[in-house]
């Protein structure tokens, strides 16, 4: 807890989508406004890659290529949030992990005493099929701490631009 704010360690989950970048901006704004610590995590989904090889959809060469591409993507997005945060005078701990995103986010929350999870767009409920549950949906449902969903909205970009 920071002052009168009920959280002190905030984690924003990045997955390369535009929605997660809006969430990152919102998290920077929140950290700036509350003085809480900001963590950003990108998980390279090696669980899905492994499953795709097992199902024979991917060959090992593709798995290696995608590992490489996703690693670059992860570093690019972590660098981006670091840049965003520094532009507003906020410190951020950027972390890249691999595995199953929802499991890794939960592990990080527990290991680092995170008390607010910030997510980007959560899919609209358009199907009842459990197989189509996204990683963000899983995090939303299973997070041990409160979750804030930042809608991918232009107002976030505007607020971010306006903040000194």
């Amino acid at each position, binding site marked *: 807890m920071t002052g009168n704010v009920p959280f002190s360690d905030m984690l924003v989950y990045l997955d390369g989508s535009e929605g997660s970048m809006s969430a990152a901006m919102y998290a920077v704004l929140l950290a700036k406004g509350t003085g809480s610590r900001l963590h950003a995590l990108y998980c390279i*989904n090696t669980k899905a890659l492994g499953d795709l090889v097992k*199902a*024979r*959809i991917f060959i090992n060469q593709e798995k290696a290529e995608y590992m490489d591409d996703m690693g670059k*993507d992860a570093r690019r997005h972590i660098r981006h949030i670091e840049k965003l945060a520094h532009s507003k005078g906020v410190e951020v701990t950027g972390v890249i992990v691999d595995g199953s995103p929802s499991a890794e986010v939960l592990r990080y929350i527990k290991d680092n005493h995170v008390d607010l999870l910030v997510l980007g767009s959560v899919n609209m409920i358009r*199907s009842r*099929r459990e197989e189509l549950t996204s990683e963000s949906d899983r995090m939303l449902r299973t997070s041990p701490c409160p979750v804030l969903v930042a809608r991918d909205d232009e107002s976030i970009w505007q607020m971010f631009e306006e903040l000194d």
Partner: protein
Amino acid sequence: MGLLEIIDKDLIINPLTSVKREDIIRDLVGAYCDKEALDEDQREAIVRAVIDRELIASTAMEKGIAIPHAKIPFLKKSAIVIGVSRIPVDFGGSEKSSIFFLVLASQENPTEHVQLLSSIARLCSSDVFVRMLASSRSADEVYQLFFD
């Protein structure tokens, strides 16, 4: 974007009438190129990329499903074309295929591409879903199955 955001009713072919692997790939790619008004060179580049990938190892899996795919440098966003054939076709796997998911990936978001393929694989692990897909009779029926 998740699978449900990408599925487009105009990009579902049911029934597919071709009976050869290359022709099926051409039909699926053709649907996408027609929709996106891509030129002949782009169409050929996509067909070549998908066929080249299939020649390394067939993407035909069990339950009569095949998931041909390729990374296409000039695509700005990923796309999926679904095809259902009444007649199982030899797609290079140990069993014939009648349900096809063509996944075209942009190079911009590799994570999204992996998530899409993973969602399709998870969905196809359901015997009931696959049976319903195989017995569907129109593009509308296929589309509805995803949104039940």
